[in-house]
């Protein structure tokens, strides 16, 4: 009797492994995307970098130095602008994320209308939103006039300053209006992909509703929360038009400071503006690194000390 040893099918015809792709092939496939990004953004960034260090002179002269960076960093407004940009980005992102988590949990079992409702604000340009905030919240805006008509305030002076104010309330409200639906949309998709049996299992193991949320639901939403909030944070931190039109006049956010320096009547300040822009880009890059660190830190295992 002859016994034939059958080989697993995979040994006859090795299937292409997704975990071990040919690197050159992967790089080749990425080339169109990398090319566009590299040329448009990378090229612009390199050009700006060269201008900021004087390798390309604005008026034709060429003198390599870090004077522009020195001027940018010693600008008395720089630190205040940086703080303001960080304040707006942190508060707006934090509030948007918290509100979105709550909304996503509330709308988890809602029908498709919930996702649709979250998409309504996405295509509306920021400028339209800014105009809306101005029409609603400015001292002569709709709310102020309505309150006056109701006799609740005696003049527009009694209405609290919500646009171009030092607390940047208008800026924050605009970002909440724009970003809450965006983050909610992402978190809704994340929540709906979580098997509810995990929460059921936690409940049977003794978890109260709060413990279930804190120990199971929230950690399982973590990646979605971090990625969406990073996008929002990055956008708000570098946003120009919203703080320019709705924000405080002094101090100004970093992008507004860059714009002011760039459009200054003194053309020699352009190098400083470009240096500020480079600093802004570096700061954004640092935040991405910090995010990656945060994600990898979350993935680290807690060691059971008594275990082998």
């Amino acid at each position, binding site marked *: 009797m002859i016994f034939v040893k059958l080989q697993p099918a995979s040994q006859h015809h090795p299937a292409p492994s997704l975990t071990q792709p040919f690197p050159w092939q992967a790089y080749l496939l990425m080339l169109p995307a990398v090319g566009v990004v590299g040329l448009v953004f990378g090229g612009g960034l390199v050009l700006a970098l060269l201008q900021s260090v004087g390798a390309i002179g604005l008026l034709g002269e060429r003198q390599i130095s870090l004077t522009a960076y020195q001027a940018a960093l010693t600008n008395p407004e720089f630190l205040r602008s940086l703080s303001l940009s960080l304040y707006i980005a942190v508060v707006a992102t934090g509030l948007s994320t918290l509100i979105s988590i709550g909304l996503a949990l509330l709308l988890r079992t809602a029908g498709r209308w919930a996702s649709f409702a979250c998409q309504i604000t996405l295509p509306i340009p920021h400028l339209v939103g800014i105009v809306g905030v101005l029409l609603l919240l400015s001292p002569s805006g709709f709310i102020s006039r309505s309150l006056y008509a109701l006799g609740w305030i005696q003049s527009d002076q009694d209405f609290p300053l919500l646009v171009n104010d030092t607390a940047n309330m208008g800026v924050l409200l605009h970002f909440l209006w724009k970003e809450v639906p965006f983050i909610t949309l992402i978190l809704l998709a994340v929540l709906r992909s979580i098997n509810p049996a995990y929460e059921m299992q936690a409940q*049977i193991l003794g*978890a*109260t509703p709060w413990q279930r949320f804190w120990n199971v639901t929230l950690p399982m939403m973590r990646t979605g929360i971090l990625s969406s909030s990073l996008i929002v944070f990055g956008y708000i931190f570098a946003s120009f038009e919203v703080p320019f039109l709705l924000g405080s006049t002094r101090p100004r956010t970093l992008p507004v400071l860059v714009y002011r320096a760039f459009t200054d009547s003194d053309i020699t300040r352009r190098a400083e503006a470009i240096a500020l822009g480079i600093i802004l880009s570096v700061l954004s890059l640092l935040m991405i690194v910090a995010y990656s660190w945060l994600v990898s830190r979350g993935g680290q*295992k807690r060691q059971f000390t*008594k275990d082998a």
Partner: protein
Amino acid sequence: MYKCNTHPQSLRPHLHLQELTKQFSGVTAVQSLWLEVQAGEILALLGPSGCGKSTTLQMIAGVVQPDSGTITLNSQILNRVPPERRDIALVLQRGLLFPHLTVGENVAFGLKMRGVSRAERDEKAIAMLRQVQLEGFADRKPSELSGGQAQRVALARSLIIHPKLLLLDEPLSALDANLREEMQDLILRLQAQTGVTMLIVTHDQAEAVVMSQRIALMFEGCLRQVDTPEQIYRQPCDETVARFMGGVNFFAAEAHGRQWRSNDLTLLSEYDHDGCVQVTIRPEQIQVLAEGRSQANTLPATVIANRFTGTQRRLTLAIAPELTLQAWVTPTQDFRVGQSVWAYLPPSALWCFPHRTVPYPVQVP
């Protein structure tokens, strides 16, 4: 003689289900279910897919509310007790370990929810992992485990909280045959060590027979028979139960006490009955002999089919023009197709139930 013992009288019921009913969108999933489980007992809730056994388990766990009826555990009515305060653990088909936690954290989860200190729960989790033979796995992520390992972790996670009742919903159905046997041994060993009352839901009758002390058979939301595996195997209450438990031989007969007549044949049984009955005999209990002998219930037969399955030989025997029976013999007993043989039907193996002209809906997995 019919073993439709759906409500056994017991002295110390641990879990008591009374008139439990549940409907989903007008469709009855569980209908007036009565069941008692003794303290420290292993009871298997067996039935085909969609018969309501998992719904019953979820009602006991508290994640599904019954429409009517009561669930009593240790004399406490549980209907209004939330799942987190029932002290019941549930192990699901695929373990369902929390993917963001390590194996050790998964095992210690229930203790953490009960406010046990980290040092104490770590120590207990490691001890529990040792019990399920997963020492050294505490720092792994669930994604790094095999199906069997994940199921063992799920078991450890449930047992660490010392539940009053352990529910297992198809715990082994996702595992391959060898692993399944290992897990069966492990579950039985842990049950013996902890003495926890266990209710296992399964659609696999072999698994139910091996693992449980009693089987509760469910069909279409109703309990059909609750009995020991041996009783349910040898003395099913009706044809549906018999077929579900692997019965293949059924024929009509007229019973007069212990003498049953069918196809001009007179058979002797150990059981008394009168009237029109449906007779059954398990195929492995029919003895096939090459030589005849003068003994009651020894009938001349012809082998009309012979199928070798590895562990046995499945013979189809023509006994009378309208009576063919299957006999499963050892592989060493080889008979030719067309060979004349003798079939001995032991009186103790012949069982009957009232004859039904309309068969029960049968859904054999």
